[in-house]
């Protein structure tokens, strides 16, 4: 119960301007599920934020990988890939 009240205390009332179509869909979902509109909007927002976080994370992973392998020539890349070339004797 304590946890529930803590979650409740983290909510904040605000005023949003939302697209009519999206709001209409959210209202239909809320009626069908017998929950209030705030629940549906909060779920949709949480889901959208999850997707955005995943996008940011993935962009960071790709940037970091590029950084980890930037500026190496072909021979150095072979070494980084576990291939150890020796200079050929003339």
């Amino acid at each position, binding site marked *: 119960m304590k946890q529930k009240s803590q979650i409740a205390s983290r909510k904040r009332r605000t005023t949003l301007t939302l697209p009519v179509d999206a709001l209409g869909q959210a209202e239909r979902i809320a009626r069908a599920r017998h929950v209030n509109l705030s629940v549906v909007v909060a779920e949709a927002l949480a889901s959208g934020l999850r997707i955005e976080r995943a996008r940011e*994370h993935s962009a960071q*992973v*790709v940037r970091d*990988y590029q950084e*980890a392998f930037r500026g190496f020539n072909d021979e150095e890349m072979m070494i980084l*890939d*576990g291939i*150890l070339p*020796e200079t050929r004797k003339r």
Partner: protein
Amino acid sequence: MIDPAWGPFLFDTSAESWLARTTQASAQEWFRRYAEQFPVHISAVTVMERTRGYALLWRRESGERRRRIESARTVYLRTLGQVWPVDAAVAMVAGEIMALLPQPPTPTKRSHKFMEARQERFSRWRCDTMIAATALVMRMPLVHNNAGDFEAIRSAIEIDPSRFPGLGPLDLVRCGALA
């Protein structure tokens, strides 16, 4: 084209760096979409090969170049996703593969300037068997950039599946086929 959602995939050492360095826009986009859904799965063997590579380059350089290599190494280690250990199951499967194919199926790497030592080729072959064994045990498709070696492992397992009960086939995806 391979849908990233079919993952997770295990990435071979050379596949991991291929994805990081590709200039092909579709492959870059594939990697970005994959990383949205899954961590980059690799074997601890890849971490070993890579770390040895960074360390060897670091040792032969000095000054700014050395700092740059150390920085790249740090970024690489920070970026690691899911690293699979060589545990008892992986070791057993790798041992079976090594017994099936005691010799590397492809020759040493060589160019007009460089040649891979025979001892090194054996060592790298053993690393490849451990990576393939990890993919088999974890039941993940293996993304690779080394068709010669991994196709040989796949064929050998198909010819003699009795030593790999409940495992296989080794599912392989070439880097070039991803996007």
